[in-house]
């Protein structure tokens, strides 16, 4: 087969997958760009009339009586809260995930596969059901409260469900495996000769960890943090079930505009602002993770 026809046939083989994703994955993203500058229709959907209203609404509230605009931080607060929760989740996941991944990577090879399987199973199992499981445990009459009362740690059930604590716990529980797996991939490749050299030069365990292990696994740390931060920022299921609809995050705020809010353009604008935040995070990743993977 000639070179040119080989290239052509390989392009043709890739075409169906690319076409399906372009048509039903990329095109919809362009649709929401257009929708975000249209007028909302009364019962959901859009009226084809161009207006920057959706973006103005994000920062300003229109007075119903005299139509003047007042600056409002309502939506900024929800976005800031989501960012804060996502960052907090990332930090706690890292604090728990790094020692776990390190421990896994230093097990004998036979044991490692079992550890990976144990972390992989929650990675793929149904997020809705895992969140429900958390809900059943932290309810007022759930096992956690029963246990604490049995311990005499608390006199009566403490309210956790439908609070910010519940949401952060849920996010942490949902995305912990997303942190452990990339960290493990990075730590598994760690060259322990460098650790040995550190000890030979009279470093303490803490110094070896801080000055050798952590810098060498930076790509894994960044990849894991991103894999937790991005989905946590757009989380929908967690605030829906554990926040009880009262403690909004970006994810359920967006969905609300398509449901009871009946303001599709506003929802599209919020989705695009979220997308911009994700792109900034990805850009940060590309800038920090490329070109400095190899040291040893």
């Amino acid at each position, binding site marked *: 087969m000639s070179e040119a026809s080989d290239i052509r046939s390989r392009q043709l083989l890739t075409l169906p997958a690319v076409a399906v994703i372009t048509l039903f994955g990329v095109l919809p993203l362009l649709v929401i760009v257009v929708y975000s500058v249209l007028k909302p229709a009364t019962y959901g959907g859009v009226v084809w009339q161009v207006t920057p209203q959706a973006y103005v609404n994000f920062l300003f509230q229109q007075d119903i009586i005299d139509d003047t605009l007042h600056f409002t931080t309502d939506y900024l607060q929800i976005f800031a809260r989501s960012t804060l929760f996502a960052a907090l989740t990332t930090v706690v996941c890292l604090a728990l995930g790094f020692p776990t991944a390190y421990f896994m990577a230093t097990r004998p090879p036979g044991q490692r596969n079992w550890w990976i399987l144990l972390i992989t199973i929650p990675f793929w199992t149904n997020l809705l059901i895992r969140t429900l499981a958390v809900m059943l445990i932290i309810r007022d009459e759930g096992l956690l409260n029963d246990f604490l009362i049995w311990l005499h740690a608390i006199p009566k059930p403490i309210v956790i469900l439908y609070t910010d604590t519940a949401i952060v716990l849920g996010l942490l529980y949902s995305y912990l495996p997303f942190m452990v797996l990339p960290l493990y991939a990075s730590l598994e490749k760690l060259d322990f000769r460098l650790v040995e050299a550190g000890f030979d030069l009279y470093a303490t*365990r803490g110094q070896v960890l801080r000055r050798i292990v952590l810098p060498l696994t930076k790509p894994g740390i960044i990849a894991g943090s991103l894999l937790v931060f991005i989905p946590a920022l757009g989380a929908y299921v967690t605030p829906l079930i554990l926040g009880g609809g009262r403690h909004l995050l970006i994810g359920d705020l967006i969905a609300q505009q398509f449901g009871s809010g009946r303001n599709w353009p506003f929802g599209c604008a919020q989705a695009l602002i979220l997308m911009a935040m994700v792109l900034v995070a990805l850009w940060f990743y590309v800038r920090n993770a490329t070109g400095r993977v190899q040291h040893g």
Partner: protein
Amino acid sequence: MAEVATTPLPNTGFDLRRQPGFGAVAMLCLTILYAPILVLIVYSFNANDLVTRWSGFSMSWYGTALTNAGFYAAARNTLTISLTAMVAATILATLAAVATTRRAPFPGQGAAYMVINLPLMVPEIITAVATLSFFALLAQWFGLSFGIGNLILAHTVFCIPFAYMPIRARLEDMDLTLEHAAADLYATPWATFRRVTLPLLAPGISSGAALAFIVSFDDFTITQLVAGPGQTTLPIFIWSQLRRPITPELNAMCTILLGVSILFVSLSFLIANRRKANP
């Protein structure tokens, strides 16, 4: 250099890999990850109708769940969507993976690779509202609706990259020697693909298909926003049950779904691992 690496430290009993307390944190993580799921599963076998007070072992809630007409209808919808999306995504991903590995990149391959991986980068809630808006536009402009096909198309899109990854990984472990040998023996490209490449690639394809099936089977966010009336899938059905008092029937339904997910993840994992054991 390699000798240095394999020489063990002499006698001191000093383990240079050990970090104190890390094992305890690892155990804590496993507990955090598994305790809620285990509690959910245990209470699906509870004899009374409370999800938090144990009163004896019973399988009766599974009977109730499996004879629940809503659950049954949702299971049928889910299987229709997941199996179709799995087959479509696996075929498309296999073709793309064969074309984008093991040889010099063709013009446009970088862009194709980016498009294929795009569904992994976009947060689910954005994909969900975008797909919803897109199908609403199709309905408004062209009166076009594929019914449950809307969901199948949406699922196929995000299943493709999940099927693509393991297939591509498997291909990168295979060199082209056998395919060249087949061509030397006058096999047509199609015969070479069917008799040489495909059998060698089978573990990658099964692993990818299993992952595609799970992500479709478990999807809640995108399905919830895109689904029309009567297109209830299992996760949506379980969500709708939350509005009434919770009984262990819900635990039983969740356990059934968890069982399916765990089965497919383990299968995918074991297939991929056997590949590493005997290349």
